[in-house]
């Protein structure tokens, strides 16, 4: 077995808020571990405050982790010098949620797409415009888009521009941070289909960050579910969707609005909201909202229950679906 492309090991990120007596430590990410293979898609899913975006930012070097390691192609991103990081960054690109604020409105599409390229290579203007043309074709935008500005495009088309920009330097991993969350339903699947086609064509890997499990079923191979800074369940999308083991994963799946009456029948509606990360609950962080919680859940960290394709950190794991 070859080494994974990205290996995150026991990653923790803390933020200190306030001073003196009001000082509070927010543990945004606690002991997160996962890996992504070449040409693979891992979805990290969680609600607001789960730490999913902070995890992505730590990998990108935008926030400093307090512990753990992030290995990318065998080199530790957290120990790299900024010069070394520059080379690594080329292979590590990102597409953000809001294509309205992530694209400079004063730059033409050609310049936006070629900007990352200009950072790494000195191309002749003919070679540069060839490359821009190639990238536009790759994301299925018309060639005449090159001379236009971002405001002339719809949300979905802007996201295509952002993807072309990320692809310009032939990255090995693209972090998609809620990249389709702001798009209309009919456009969302267009972009997911494009990302999937590009993966087949180029072998790129994705770390797909999202708040909604419903979006990833047809898109990712594996999933990590986060709650209040912790990864509570991992596994293949197939197994987790068919037979979630963590109580939170089960609730998250059953909360997806659906016309399937059978899926609504056994619905678990969670009480309350995600607690303050500055004072997380003891024991299992999910226990105050968990329908199955018992005394032990409030006192003891849950053990890792092994599943076919991953694990779930839960004292009272859901039963394995009989079909599984």
């Amino acid at each position: 077995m070859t080494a994974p492309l990205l290996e995150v090991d026991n990653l923790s990120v803390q933020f200190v808020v306030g001073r003196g007596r009001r000082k509070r430590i927010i543990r945004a990410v606690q002991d997160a571990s996962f890996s992504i293979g070449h040409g693979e898609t891992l979805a990290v899913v969680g609600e607001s405050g789960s730490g999913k975006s902070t995890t992505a930012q730590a990998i990108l070097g935008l926030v400093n982790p307090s512990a753990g390691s992030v290995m990318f192609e065998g080199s530790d991103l957290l120990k790299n010098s900024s010069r070394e990081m520059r080379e690594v960054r080329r292979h590590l690109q990102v597409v953000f949620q809001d294509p309205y604020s992530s694209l400079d409105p004063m730059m033409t599409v050609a310049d936006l797409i070629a900007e990352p390229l200009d950072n790494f290579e000195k191309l002749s203007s003919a070679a540069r415009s060839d490359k821009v043309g190639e990238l536009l074709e790759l994301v299925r935008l018309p060639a005449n888009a090159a001379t236009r500005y971002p405001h002339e495009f719809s949300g979905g088309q802007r996201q295509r521009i952002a993807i072309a920009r990320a692809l310009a330097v032939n990255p090995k991993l693209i972090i998609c941070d809620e990249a389709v969350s702001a798009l209309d339903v009919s456009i969302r699947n267009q972009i997911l289909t494009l990302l999937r086609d590009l993966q087949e064509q180029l072998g790129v890997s994705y770390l797909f960050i999202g708040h909604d499990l419903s979006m990833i079923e047809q898109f990712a191979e594996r999933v990590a579910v986060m709650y209040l800074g912790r990864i509570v369940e991992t596994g293949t999308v197939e197994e987790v969707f068919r037979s979630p083991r963590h109580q939170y994963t089960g609730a998250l799946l059953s909360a997806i609005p659906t016309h399937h009456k059978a899926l609504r029948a056994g619905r678990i509606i969670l009480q309350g909201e995600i607690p303050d990360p500055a004072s997380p609950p003891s024991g299992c962080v999910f226990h105050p909202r968990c329908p199955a919680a018992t005394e032990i859940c409030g006192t003891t960290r849950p053990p890792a229950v092994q599943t076919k394709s991953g694990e779930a950190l839960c004292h009272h794991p859901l039963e394995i679906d009989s079909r599984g």
Partner: protein
Amino acid sequence: MAKNVAEEVEASSSSSPLLSVEGASVEFWTGSSWLRVVDQVSFVVPAGGRVGIVGESGSGKTMTGLAILGLIPGPAGRLAEGSIKFDGHDLAQLPPAEMRRIRGNDIAMVFQEPMRSLNPMMSIGDQIAEGMRRHWGWSKKKATNRAIELLDRVEIPAAAQRAREYPHHLSGGMRQRAMIALALACDPKLLIADEPTTALDVTVQAQIIELFRELSDERDMALLFITHDLGVVSELCSDLVVMYSGQVVETGDVDRVFDRPTHPYTEGLLQSLPKLGAGNRELGFIPGNPPDPAALPPGCRFQPRCPHALPICETSQPELLTIGDRQSRCLLNSELSLQGVGS
């Protein structure tokens, strides 16, 4: 034409409708001409019924909601034609003072961003009490007690204490609950909710949908639920209005539309729904983008994106036709057998 359609629907509906929108068009002045963003929209909401308007950004669904409330942003915007009949009044003809009396009293609204609709300088309890004091002349004490009851009803923990707090103290989900309590204050007959759960986390969204359902049932309050999410509509509403590019393209009973859509756009939306546990990797989508309202395609507005389009779709504009208790705006309606999603 649109008026006839509305009348037919009215006739086929068992109870007389609480709200009946008939041929309503909303236009905006662009500096040189009027641009139509809502085109001849007609639908009804029965008393105590739950109707969902589904559409994507730019479909005109939000503007339709604002038109009912008499809140089209002026002076550039106007209700160009049509009538909005509510409980015996034509809201389009009502003087502003009368409209204000109905709005917040008989018709209330909840928006996506409660932070924009709540006054940051006023405690939650005072805001809810304000409506009852103004509309009903209640004393401060009486109104405040009622406000606390309402906060308790929308399941805000420690309601009496929360009533004294300000909007920024509350989480997104709690703010939306407070917003709903505010909307309920004057016992409205109709609640218009525009994407009220879109900004919320999935687990909180499930709570709020359940709350809407309970409130509508126990108060016999009609609900007009505006959303982009067909899944939410299928959970909450009995009837569905699908809008595309400013027009109604399909209406009908939710289950029947899901089972067998009659407009290709609805079919596309249904195929884009998450398949939850179906174990296949197919991602349904609609190619292309919705048209610019200033540069509409010839013929049917959906035709450039429609997988079933024929040459006639580029030359003729489809009317909204009534077939039984369904309506559909598609020229090929009788020839197509569209794919639904089973329940």
